[in-house]
């Protein structure tokens, strides 16, 4: 059985245990290192005699390399080598690929794609030489640069049931609108970086990755070596958001050069390269059709999206993922169409699918509520289905209604003006908006080793990464809770590929999956301890280093230990993954101010209420939600990849022109967790939390803009240029 999760674990073990650390808002155990700059990120390992490599990007958009003029560059000071090996990557790997992505850098698939690596003694020498490297190309123009007007193919199997068109024609209230969202960048603060060092045929790579179990295979396959000869160290990752799910160009380039030079090589992407060559979230065009009867019950639901990617990439932004289960509407058509274009690879960017799908669905729902003159919260609650429309799958735990109610109450939603342009403060129109949140939930195969040492202290080990998500904190809390040890007697080691394979950080599944593996390892240790105490495992009580059971006097747990007990816990998705529709839910409420003259929109406050199953650490879970909401603000108001449609190159390839929100963009924020346990989701009753905070947030903001000033934009981000075009006369009283 190997840990397959087939039946919901109804024991709620973590509510029976005694230590009392689970869920508590504990500080991150690695916090003292991070605030002192002593957490070591990929580029920061001090390897003796390390050479510096810089990638060279293609100056054409598509075609092939015909010549690389190495000689001039090789004579520049400090230059050690110019590499354009077959193994080097043309494209970054998609999440969970576990195999080499497109290689062979003689071919150019998109603008600025790496075609060579220049290595020198120093970073400055390598950078100058990389700029100086002359390359000849043969240019082609087979692939269009813009998705506009291009042929498309299905990006996924369409979901159709009933008769959408006929039902729309009969409905009392209908909305048929088309929205657009632009491309987004992950823009993690730490640029992708690798240090490669060979010892014979064994490679050690210090890198910045989210999912080591897959990354090892991607590295090995790309380099043509056995996976057992590849070791990745990634204990601290400066943000990922999807961009570090798969390996990227720096890793293979560093490994190729290090093997050739017989010395360590470090390759760090420039910030511009991170934008240009890693992953973009596809732009989308989305048509939403909503048809409701007189009572506001959805009978018709259409959500069709058009997205893009490079030729031969399988990823298509799963825009309608949450639409499938969120609301009623038996007559439906949900589809994603994919155009093949010449722009950097499209892939996972935080909450692929829902991040852009939910904000549009929720904006359209607001339009329907306005059309019907019904409270937007009521409209949503009226459309919470009993089973998944179309296929009758039952829901696992679902706290949508509770989140809507608790969020509305905390926010003061009842004070919202029913109509736009009702509240003006000086130059600013003030308005409120809301949206539901939803994100699919899943677990992935995961392993972790837990060791209870002879002195009772606990060691948790996995190749699970912590990309800021709080893995170090929560995995320690689960083990401490299960094994009855104070948190400071618990140590967590992560991000080393030689440790048991965790689920990795992606799809919000790291905590529930690897957390469950830790839980199960602890259960195995508890079974040993129970055997020694002569009680049933589920009757075993552990707290602060004491062990006891009904009728058995407390004794020091160390009395039961004659050495270390090390157990590996495993979990794999099983029947519970399909028996129920699993998701996390929530609600957003925002108040905005829109400048009546300039169209600038500023948030005044934001509340999110979320049901994420068991909260494993209230502090880090809250932080995840806050982070998602900040992304929602960026998506609503400022973030947009600007591609030049003449050649596909990214014009705003840096942090000055791609506008991630800054401190001043962020209003006071409130996060509410709705009490929930979801035994279908995982044996620890936890679900994911890393992405839910975005999923719908931008919709709440667009709805608030409408409520403030009556401007209903259908194009994200809602920058001043778009808002002001629709604004009423600022002087009108």
């Amino acid at each position, binding site marked *: 059985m190997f840990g397959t999760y087939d039946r919901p674990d109804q024991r709620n073990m973590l509510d029976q245990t005694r230590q009392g650390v689970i869920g508590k808002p504990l500080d991150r155990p690695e916090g003292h290192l991070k605030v002192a700059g002593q957490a070591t990120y990929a580029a920061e390992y001090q390897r003796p005699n390390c050479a510096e490599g810089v990638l060279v990007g293609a100056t054409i958009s598509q075609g092939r390399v015909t010549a690389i003029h190495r000689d001039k560059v090789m004579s520049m000071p400090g230059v050690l080598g110019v590499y354009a090996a077959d193994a080097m990557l043309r494209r970054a790997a998609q999440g969970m690929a576990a195999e080499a992505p497109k290689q062979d850098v003689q071919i150019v698939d998109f603008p600025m794609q790496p075609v060579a690596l220049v290595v020198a003694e120093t970073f400055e020498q390598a950078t100058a030489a990389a700029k100086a490297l002359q390359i000849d190309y043969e240019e082609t123009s087979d692939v269009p640069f813009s998705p506009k007007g291009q042929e498309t193919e299905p990006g996924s199997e369409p979901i159709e049931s009933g008769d959408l068109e006929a039902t729309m024609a009969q409905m009392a209230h209908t909305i048929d609108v088309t929205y657009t969202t632009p491309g987004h960048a992950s823009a993690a603060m730490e640029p992708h970086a690798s240090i490669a060092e060979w010892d014979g045929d064994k490679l050690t790579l210090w890198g910045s990755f989210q999912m080591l179990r897959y990354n090892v295979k991607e590295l090995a396959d790309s380099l043509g070596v056995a996976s057992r000869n590849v070791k990745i160290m990634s204990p601290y990752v400066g943000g990922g958001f999807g961009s570090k799910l798969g390996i990227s160009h720096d890793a293979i380039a560093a490994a190729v050069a290090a093997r050739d030079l017989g010395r360590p090589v470090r390759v760090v992407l420039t910030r511009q390269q991170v934008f240009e060559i890693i992953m973009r979230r596809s732009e989308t065009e989305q048509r939403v059709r909503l048809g409701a009867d007189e009572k506001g019950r959805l009978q018709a639901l259409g959500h069709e999206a058009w997205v893009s990617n490079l030729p031969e990439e399988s990823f298509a932004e799963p825009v309608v993922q949450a639409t499938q289960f969120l609301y009623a509407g038996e007559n439906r058509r949900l589809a994603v169409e994919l155009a093949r274009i010449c722009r950097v690879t499209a892939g996972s960017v935080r909450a692929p699918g829902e991040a852009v799908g939910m904000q549009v669905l929720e904006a359209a729902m607001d339009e329907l509520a306005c059309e019907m003159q019904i409270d937007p919260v009521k409209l949503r609650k009226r459309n919470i289905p009993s089973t998944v429309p179309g296929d009758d799958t039952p829901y696992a735990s679902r706290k949508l209604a509770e989140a809507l109610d608790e969020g509305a109450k905390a926010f003061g939603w009842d004070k919202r003006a029913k109509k736009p342009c009702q509240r003006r403060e000086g130059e600013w129109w003030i308005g409120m908006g809301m949206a539901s949140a939803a994100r699919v939930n899943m677990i992935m195969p995961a392993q972790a080793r837990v060791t209870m040492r002879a002195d009772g202290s606990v060691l948790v080990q996995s190749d699970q990464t912590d990309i800021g998500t709080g893995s170090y904190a929560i995995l320690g809390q689960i083990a401490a809770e299960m094994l009855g040890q104070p948190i400071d007697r618990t140590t967590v080691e992560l991000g080393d590929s030689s440790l048991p394979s965790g689920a990795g950080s992606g799809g919000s599944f790291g905590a529930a999956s690897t957390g469950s593996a830790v839980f199960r390892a602890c259960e195995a240790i508890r079974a040993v301890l129970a055997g020694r105490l002569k009680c049933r495992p589920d009757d075993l009580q552990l707290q602060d280093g004491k062990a006891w059971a009904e009728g058995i006097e407390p004794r020091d747990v160390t009395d039961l230990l004659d050495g270390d007990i090390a157990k590996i816990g495993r979990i794999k998705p099983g029947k519970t993954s399909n028996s129920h529709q699993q998701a996390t839910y929530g609600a957003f409420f925002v108040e905005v101010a829109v400048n009546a003259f300039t169209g600038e929109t500023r948030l005044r406050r934001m509340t999110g209420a979320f049901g994420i199953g068991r909260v494993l650490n209230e502090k880090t879970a809250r932080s995840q939600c806050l982070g998602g909401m900040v992304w929602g603000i960026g998506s609503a108001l400022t973030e947009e990849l600007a*591609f030049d449609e003449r050649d596909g190159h990214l014009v705003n390839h840096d942090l000055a022109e791609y506008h991630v929100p*800054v401190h001043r963009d962020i209003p006071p924020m409130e996060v509410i967790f709705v009490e929930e346990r979801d035994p279908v989701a995982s044996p620890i009753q936890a679900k994911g939390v890393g992405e839910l905070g975005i999923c719908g947030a931008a919709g709440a903001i667009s709805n608030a803009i409408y409520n403030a000033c009556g401007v209903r934009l259908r194009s994200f981000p809602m920058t001043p240029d778009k808002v002001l075009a629709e604004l009423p006369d600022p002087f009108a009283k």
Partner: protein
Amino acid sequence: MKAFDYARAADLPDAVGSDAKLIAGGTNLLDLMKLEVETPDALLDINRIGLDLIEPEGDGLRVGALVTNSDCAADARVRKDWPLLSKAILAGASPQLRNKATTGGNLCQRTRCGYFMDNQSPCNKREPGTGCAAQGGFNRIHAILGTSDACIATYPGDMAVALSALDAQVVIAGRSDSRTVRVRDFHVLPGDAPQHENVLQPGEVITGVTLPAPVEGVQIYRKVRDRASYAFALMSVAAVIRMDQGRIAHAQLAFGSLAHKPWHDPRIEELLKGETPTPALFDKAADLLLEDAKGYGANDFKIPLARRTLAAVLAEATGV
């Protein structure tokens, strides 16, 4: 970055007449050198030549070229008598950048045009004669006033917009003598030589900026931008407005990020003078400002934005 020789100037005479590229705060120059948009053979560090004081000059004030943006914005005299300058500086960049950026350097700040900053693209400013990729490209931040077929870039800064409104002077030391140029005349339009952004001649060094005697009135710097902070302007308005018995007695106005230079149009000031402020008057002012405005697609919105922002500033200043 291309290799260069580095030397330090000991005093102003070291710097005047030097063929080397002068570096002070370096916040813009090093940014562009890393991109190899700027590739000087030699850098002369002028941080140790003085010019870092703010001193009275007549009824006005002289701000040394090497006074940092932070020091200028925090200076008690500037805040009291020329608050517009302080406000404009504080609307720009970040505290970290303002701690490095200098008064002289900021006047010489180069454009943020994405094609200028990208060596792969044709750009008449970076490489005369290659063309202008911004026209027909992504030009949301580009100019609508005073453009040419050769270039539609903007001067992106904030400080100089306030200086233009205040009618400050740039003091320039040359090989033989010194001269002063009004800030309003310091930057030039692109014409057919957009590589020239100002009137500095080779070897000349900005030694400071002189602020004229304080002007009475409300001083407003209004910057419209995508983010609430730390973003370049979509446009900005610098205004000094004095009211007298319900009428506009005096107006000084300049506009940022609409052109290759801080935009100043004396006709607008004349138009406003003596008038009772009304939305209709503000519209007339905008008509003058935008008489020859031309959008290039993505930046078309700057035309209504400029109209509305000017109205907002005049309304605030006059209490309409």
